[in-house]
């Protein structure tokens, strides 16, 4: 798994690629929660390069989303492959995380 983070117009964009499973999700959690702790509250997750996600990866997003509830922040996703999006649907995560096709359309949600 690779994570690249950069701030774009006040929004923190994480570009994630590879696998988000129980081995890699702790790193993802450390990165995301670290940035939240520093005060950022609006995030775009570009999952274009993500070819695998398990409940371990979903948990990180849920945990971050729960923390962001207190600061009225949000996480918006984009670039999900169809079969990855299906997991979000089955887990009922599409009601928590808005999903868009591109980074640009995701950035417009803020």
């Amino acid at each position: 798994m690779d994570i690249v983070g950069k701030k774009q117009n006040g929004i923190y964009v994480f570009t994630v690629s590879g696998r988000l499973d129980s081995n890699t999700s702790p790193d993802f959690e450390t990165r995301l929660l670290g940035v939240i702790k520093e005060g950022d509250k609006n995030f775009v997750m570009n999952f274009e390069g993500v070819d695998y996600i398990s409940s371990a990866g979903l948990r990180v997003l849920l945990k971050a989303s729960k923390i962001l509830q207190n600061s009225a922040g949000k996480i918006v996703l984009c670039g999900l492959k169809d079969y990855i999006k299906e997991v979000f649907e089955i887990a009922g995560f599409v009601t928590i995380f808005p999903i868009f096709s591109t980074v640009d359309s995701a950035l417009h949600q803020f």
Partner: protein
Amino acid sequence: MTAGTLSLHLRNDLSELATVSKNLEEFATSLGLSKRTMFQLNLVIDELVTNIINYAYRDDAEHRITVIVRFEEESLVMRVEDDGIPFNPILSAAPDCSCPVERRVVGKLGIHLARQFADDLVYERCGNRNVLTITKHVREETLAEGPQKSRSN
């Protein structure tokens, strides 16, 4: 489509999940399965094995988890065996996937996903072993996406 079987004997260590995904990818590719089917197969086994590694053992000893995947009559039949405490994932309560984020629970999602992506689940307690048999139907159009397989006759 030629039949295929994959047998994996795993230690109760999360690092073994990398072995699982590598072997499943080779197996699925050899059968010409789509990326979607390959992903769902990997997810089902990942969630079940992760759950076993995290919760099945009451000691710190090394244990073996056996995973066997067979492809037969357009179905993937997975058999997962462990010698942990009795656990029937079929009876595990499903998490509430529609409530607001503040009431969502972080646990139980893995077993829920595994069940949702399986077409049929059978649990047996055989002596001191949990034996779970999972069937996943592979649709015709999924098979057609893969490379042509030569018949063995």
